[in-house]
């Protein structure tokens, strides 16, 4: 029985440019919005899963031509898109996920109805959509906490909150662990020969 295996890429869309319009709610005038919040602002209204799909398909076509488009077209789908957190989960076939990943890396601006420059960062690659979802939830929580800490420290000018929460940075680097990095390891049942010749 041949099952089509997929990879689910969890991506963040970051907006590196300063906001041109000053329609920022709930900030006092003269209050500097910290970069954290600026880079991860919600996507523009016109942005949705369809725009993202178009972005990816065009990117793959530009980078890999008809070959790439053909390889990737069948299984490419944006499974989840959140405008508020500018996060998306994209499904790709397992053999060619690197192509799509590269196309995302090379994307510099969102296509026309939206037309904003962006940086797309792939945050997690996993074989099941569930893992990607969990990661998305975890990150959303983290960023809320971070934004709260930012607001508090800019108001009260104390590092109290920041200092209180424990440092979870692992100082013991296990390089073997990091080789896979953000990719979830394969399920032992799913290991098969890698058909992709591109990888060195």
């Amino acid at each position, binding site marked *: 029985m041949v099952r089509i295996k997929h990879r689910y890429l969890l991506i963040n869309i970051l907006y590196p440019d300063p906001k041109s319009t000053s329609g920022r709610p709930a900030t006092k005038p003269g209050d500097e919005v910290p970069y954290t919040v600026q880079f991860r602002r919600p996507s523009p209204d016109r942005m949705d899963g369809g725009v993202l799909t178009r972005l990816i398909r065009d990117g793959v076509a530009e980078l890999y031509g008809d070959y790439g488009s053909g390889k990737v077209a069948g299984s490419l789908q944006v499974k989840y898109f959140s405008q508020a957190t500018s996060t998306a989960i994209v499904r790709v076939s397992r053999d060619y996920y690197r192509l799509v990943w590269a196309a995302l*890396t090379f994307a510099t601006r969102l296509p026309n109805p939206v037309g904003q420059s962006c940086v797309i960062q792939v945050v997690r690659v996993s074989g099941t959509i569930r893992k990607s979802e969990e990661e998305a939830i975890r990150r959303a929580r983290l960023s809320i906490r971070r934004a709260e800490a930012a607001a508090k420290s800019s108001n009260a000018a104390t590092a109290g909150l920041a200092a209180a929460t424990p440092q979870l940075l692992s100082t013991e680097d296990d390089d073997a662990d990091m080789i896979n990095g953000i990719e979830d390891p394969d399920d032992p049942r799913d290991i098969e020969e890698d058909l992709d010749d591109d990888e060195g």
Partner: protein
Amino acid sequence: MPFYDLNVPWSTPNSELPRTLSFLAESYLIEPNADADVCAVGYNVVALNFTITGKLPTNFACAIPDPLPFVVPSKLTVLRRLTLVLTTPVNNAALTQLASSYDILAVRPVDEKSLLLAATSLDSDIVSLDLTQRLPYFFRFKTLAEAVKRGVRFEVCYAQGVGGDAVSRRNLIGNVQGLIRASRKRGLIVSSGAASAGACRGPWDVINLASIWGLGQERGYEALSEEARKVAVTARLRRTSYRSVVNVVYGGEQAAKSDKKAEIREKGIQDVQEKRKVHVLDDTSPAESEKPVSKREQKRRRKAELEKHAETKGSVVTPDHTKM
């Protein structure tokens, strides 16, 4: 696993720079208590790069002010780097003098002759080529291997290729392929060269690009973290210690000399202390393999040496065999 981005162009005026640095800085994944103005793409160490073309300036001071004129994200370490474009021939003495006020020295050859010069005789830490141009020559294994043996690393900058220009992208990919092939995947580092925040990419995205271009996931990860770290550490050693071997840590009454790192290979420098064995590895790691020595660790070592010295005579320091 700290990620290094050793090429963030510096220029005055630099209105984009604080934004770019914030964009590059690390805060994501694990820590829930990140500082206010740190944002996540994922780098820990960044080097600001100041480029000089043509004649060397007479003023040898560092062009990048210290401290920096804007707020730097707190988790980010900022190094200062100088890139010299080799349009005119340069000699080593002038280079070392210039380099002493910066943390890292890089050299940008413009043709095959200057590439040969940079790889074989010039005393720089990085050789950086403009890979978005069509290069009229091929990379040769001999040249690159010799350079890597001396401790010089070759740099790939991805920002111009990612920027959107199809021709640069094609040239970049082709040249990187040639570089990877000729260098046998060793001795490469990847950096951004990003003039604005929009040209930066996350470290894992860059590693993925490198693996598509032929470097492979493991080597790509090394290129971004380990190799870059080696560059930074070797550069520092070259500047602070005597021929990268001996560094006086505690110059007190006992005059204890301590050996900072066990790296000797590229320069082929002989051991200064009699009883130590020289461990020459054919591997291209110029500094201690696992971790950079933290201040606490340095203090501990100093203490250990002093105690040891109190027991034994002379300044014999046992080599650290674990660092292989």
